[in-house]
């Protein structure tokens, strides 16, 4: 068994177990913390594939940003220790239906896609290349999505300030 496979199995095991407990845990704070481990595992997978930029972004944005934001929201609402229990049958059914649809879709995609795993070579992409393609205006470059994203974030910021501002 190669060392890569061992690391992958470790990460996958942590992710699956953490994800399961995150969904089944009745305490919202615990669920959030477990979600953090799933996100760490994902970052670990990126590092394994030498996508170090994507891995670092995963840690900054999700672990350092989204999870902190989630915890903040939970703390501000003061519901950290409240048990999340199912209230109505309708919600239960809707949740199950969504999960099943997601699972079917994922299995369909995994089985129908031809993964070019043998053609994949793990190599570092330099920051210069990333920056050039992120800011480039040619084909397969990402200047338009990048700008659209920044407009969206600006709109969010303005909206948040508008809501938070006292008259």
């Amino acid at each position, binding site marked *: 068994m*190669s*060392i890569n496979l061992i690391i992958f199995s470790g990460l996958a095991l942590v992710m699956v177990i953490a994800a399961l407990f995150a969904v089944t845990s009745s*305490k919202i*704070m*615990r669920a959030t*913390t477990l979600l*953090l481990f799933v996100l760490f595992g994902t970052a670990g997978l990126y590092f394994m594939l030498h996508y*170090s*930029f994507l891995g*670092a*972004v995963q*840690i*900054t944005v999700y*672990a*350092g*940003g989204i*999870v*902190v934001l989630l*915890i*903040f929201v939970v*703390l501000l609402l003061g519901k*950290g*220790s409240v048990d999340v229990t199912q209230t109505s049958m309708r919600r239960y059914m809707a949740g199950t239906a969504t999960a099943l649809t997601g699972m079917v879709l994922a299995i369909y995609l995994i089985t129908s896609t031809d993964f070019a795993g043998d053609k994949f070579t793990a190599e*570092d992409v*330099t*920051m210069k290349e990333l920056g050039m393609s992120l800011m480039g205006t040619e084909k397969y470059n990402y200047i338009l999505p990048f700008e659209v994203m920044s407009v969206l974030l600006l709109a969010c910021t303005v909206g948040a300030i508008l809501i938070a501002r006292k008259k």
Partner: protein
Amino acid sequence: MIDFNSVTTAIDRFLNSVLPHQAATLVECLIIAVCAIVAYLTFAIVMIYMERKVCAAFQCRVGPDRVGKWGLLQVFSDVFKMLTKEIIELCSSDKILYTLAPFLVIMSSIITFSCLPFDNGLQVLDFNIGIFFIMAASSFGILGILLGGWSSNNKFSMIGAMRSGGQMISYELSMGLSVLTLVVLSGTMQISDLVEEQTKGWFIFRGHIPAFIAFIIYIISGNAETNRAPFDLPEAESELTAGFHTEYSGMGFGLFYVAEFMNMFIIAGIATTIFLGGWAPFTIPGADAFNSAMFMIPGFVWFLGKTFFVIWLLMWIRWTFPRLRIDQVLVLEWKYMVPIGLLNLLIMTICVVMGWTF
């Protein structure tokens, strides 16, 4: 100057000759982990001793001098005391998160620590995104503080954690901006390249005015990131007992304490790496005899010398300024530091494009 790459390559070759490749890799990982943790703890001990002595000097006191010669064994006896303390069990608190919180803080701290370049080739992690990875790894330490404060089930801890959260998230921004300013100047994010580039001259001199502004912004936000005075609101003793770690005893508290000190070392180490040349010696272009004399001094002496100089600066700030109020802290960040940082980034970009740097 010794190139430590040759040493590590020799060790790698030796291990590969006696062991199969995968076992050798595993052994190397273990050796590196042990070395990193031992270095981490050694520096923590030095830092705690230094903090006490420097604080005493600023307050015209002598500092610890009873345990061992010049109080050198004070830190060891403190650690021993902490180990013998009773671990308290809290009623109606989330035990799992309570236990987990200090480890998140220390994990973030150790990962960041292992990115520091102590000498040529003497660093654990060297990605091509180097400095960005440092920012990423240091960004999740805040989670440990938030969880620790919340799971203590204590209002003071909770207030401390919330303050800490607001403060650290805010100051991460201006810290990122000042680091970005230097990345614009250097054109690389890989830490070994950053330092290599500075053997021709430290960035704080080569980037002149914008680099110096960035350095000041970095020092201020670094102070805030480590939750030290004048930004020590999260643990303000006079208001919140001890802030987010009020309910921790024994080594749980010890981990928070060590991580706080080591985060100061890391902040100083990063400042050294990106502004003051890391292990690169002080050189003057043209003066060859002087330069070769400077290159005789080993790199880790340069790195540690500069790092402890920055630490001394941070301690000077800590023992000189009074504590800010939380609204003042946030006003300072959002109304002054972020706009100045953005403007400074623009100035640096113009300087680099026009070739006004050295």
